[in-house]
């Protein structure tokens, strides 16, 4: 009986995989089967039907394997699922472990400059993810143009420091305020729009900001961007090899040899601190009336109105708060790179940040870290495979979503409980 059943299954799986293979062949036929070749006489076509066969074979094999595997175990309770659930139970502990690891990372024996650099990059995205989490995860406002505020923060710092010679530490809060201001200015007219309309308008806004950065040459230097942006100092100690007249460098002051790694490590700790502050802020504000109002708004706007909450104010506060953190992250990005141009602030950045939030499990702080590691950290490692990187990235977004539609860590813990309230 079981044997007969499995033979039936096998036959069905084979048929299914065959169909998949045929479809793949048909899909691949125009795009992979022919190659557009430039030549002096114009465009001509090259043939490479082998690729079509390969695509069909890969899909056939993959589909077959998938059906057979799916037959042997229930998809919802795979080992990874259980791991995820167990992990969710020990989240508190895991959070502290992560912070601890992050704090000692630069001093670990295997940590070279490269690793710290990459960790810095991941942390920028963690911070951006936490910022956007306020808007999307808590308040439920779909923002597809988050990168705009990141750009505002970066350019605010670059321009302020270039024009007025202000230091990073003075500009950082200003950049956050500017970004928040932009958030308010944009949010005020558009936050009345419902879900997806808001998405398209924020997307448009993100593009507008980029177009302006590209074309307002007098202020932003257009597509060439701004270079030579000031680096941050530690209480006035610079991290360059030679300090400008009369100022001590970090190496001089502590009497150690100059090393470029000092600055990398210093930047790493700045972003770590900034990210942790963002996290702390979110954890705190979730327990305050504003934070609860954000979540309530996500759950049911009409009920909110019936309880005396002004939806516009609630939305604006979430939007502006998220924007502020993007602004902070932006000015850090500017100071780390030393160079910014509109190139760095394309839609794909917004998409990545949103993906981090959604993949992480909306509203989950640790989920954001995991997703950032997965989406930003891993690809950084495969830089050698440059051209396939984005393909894999997009594919991963689809696959993770199919695997866990509500994100990696989707459970939510209440912000107050009767037991704890005493």
């Amino acid at each position, binding site marked *: 009986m079981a044997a007969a059943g499995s033979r039936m299954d096998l036959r069905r799986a084979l048929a299914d995989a065959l169909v998949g293979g045929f479809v793949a062949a048909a899909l691949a036929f125009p795009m992979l089967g022919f190659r557009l070749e430039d030549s002096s006489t114009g465009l001509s076509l090259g043939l490479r039907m082998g690729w079509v066969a390969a695509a069909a074979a890969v899909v056939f094999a993959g589909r077959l394997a998938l059906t057979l595997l799916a037959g042997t175990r229930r998809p919802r309770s795979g080992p990874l699922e259980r791991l995820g659930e167990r992990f969710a139970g020990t989240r508190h502990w895991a959070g502290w472990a992560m912070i601890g690891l992050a704090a000692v990372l630069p001093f670990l024996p295997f940590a070279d400059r490269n690793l710290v650099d990459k960790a810095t990059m991941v942390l920028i995205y963690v911070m951006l993810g936490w910022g956007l989490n306020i808007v999307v995860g808590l308040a439920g406002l779909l923002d597809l143009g988050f990168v705009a505020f990141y750009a505002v923060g970066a350019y605010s710092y670059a321009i302020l420091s270039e024009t007025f010679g202000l230091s990073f530490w003075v500009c950082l809060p200003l950049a956050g305020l500017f970004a928040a201001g932009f958030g308010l200015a944009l949010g005020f007219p558009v936050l009345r729009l419902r879900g997806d309309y808001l998405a398209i308008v924020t997307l448009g806004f993100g593009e507008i900001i980029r177009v302006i950065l590209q074309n307002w040459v007098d202020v932003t230097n257009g597509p060439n961007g701004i270079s030579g942006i000031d680096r941050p100092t530690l209480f006035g100690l610079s991290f360059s090899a030679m300090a400008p007249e009369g100022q001590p460098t970090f190496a001089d002051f502590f009497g150690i040899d100059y090393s470029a790694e000092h600055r990398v490590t210093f930047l790493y700790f700045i972003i770590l601190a900034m990210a942790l502050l963002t996290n702390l802020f979110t954890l705190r504000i979730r327990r*305050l*009336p504003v934070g609860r109002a954000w979540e*309530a708004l996500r759950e049911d706007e009409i*009920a909110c109105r*019936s309880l005396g909450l002004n939806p516009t104010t609630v939305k604006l506060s979430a939007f502006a708060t998220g924007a502020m953190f993007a602004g902070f992250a932006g000015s850090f990005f500017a100071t780390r790179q030393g160079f910014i141009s509109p190139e760095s602030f394309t839609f794909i950045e917004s998409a990545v940040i949103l993906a981090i939030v959604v993949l992480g499990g909306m509203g989950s702080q640790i989920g954001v870290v995991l997703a950032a590691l997965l989406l930003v950290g891993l690809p950084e490692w495969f830089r050698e495979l440059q051209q396939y990187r984005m393909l894999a990235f997009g594919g991963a977004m689809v696959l993770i979503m199919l695997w866990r539609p509500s994100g990696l860590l989707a459970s939510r813990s209440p912000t*107050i*409980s009767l037991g704890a309230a005493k």
Partner: protein
Amino acid sequence: MTAPLLDVEHLTMRFGGLFAVNDLSFSAARGAITAVIGPNGAGKTTLFNCITGFYKPQVGRLTLRHPSRGEMLLERLPDHRITSRAGVARTFQNIRLFPRMSVLENLIVAQHTVLMRASGYSLAGLLGLARYRDAEAAAVDKARHWLDKVELTRHADDEAGSLPYGSQRRLEIARAMCTDPVLLCLDEPAAGLNPRESAELNTLLTGIRDEHGIGLLLIEHDMSVVMGISDHVVVLDYGRKIAEGTPAQVRADPAVIRAYLGEEEDEPLPPEVAQDLKGSGHA
């Protein structure tokens, strides 16, 4: 007699060419339960949406006399101000809780206006000042009071969406009460409840009326609820008021019977309706 809590005067609400509510006037008193009944589509929910600001009526005046804040014209306030300023709270026909937040959180969100002020618009709260902590403790106490009232204390930390239907209804009433209303509007609170739950609801509502002295405005289909606890009944049909009075007066009104049972008066009442009408007199 003092001036009524709410005066509805010449209220008219049109959707396209359809008059959902047409030149309606009535009053609701403090410390009393006013029921609005009528067949489906009579305009009851539209009336509620006008009173609570979700719709803006084309014609008419809605005067609310707040015991401490004075007289307010509801049609001129945005919906959230009607709750936070005028003290009108409501529940919904299709329950609208915050399903993924805990029961307690639902009740705390309802106290947003008070807590927001206490948290210094978040600043004091972020800094963890004592003023906010005290306010939050008070809010929890109030929530606990209402949880006890609606017998949900045990479930305080559960997700609101996971509660059974009847409990969700009670939670929604408790949540509305946490806004400290002077007028509580209930849109079919007994819908979907079994007879036992329905009886408990009666106790809860009369309790609210007697202990808090606020006005209750009630839309209901369930005759046993309406006839049993209402002090005053307004009957709507096609957006117009066709009768008004005490439950006994309304029950005897031929226009009401016609509206509910159709024009052919010689047709005998369906047994369950007859029983309902009769039985509810003693409830």
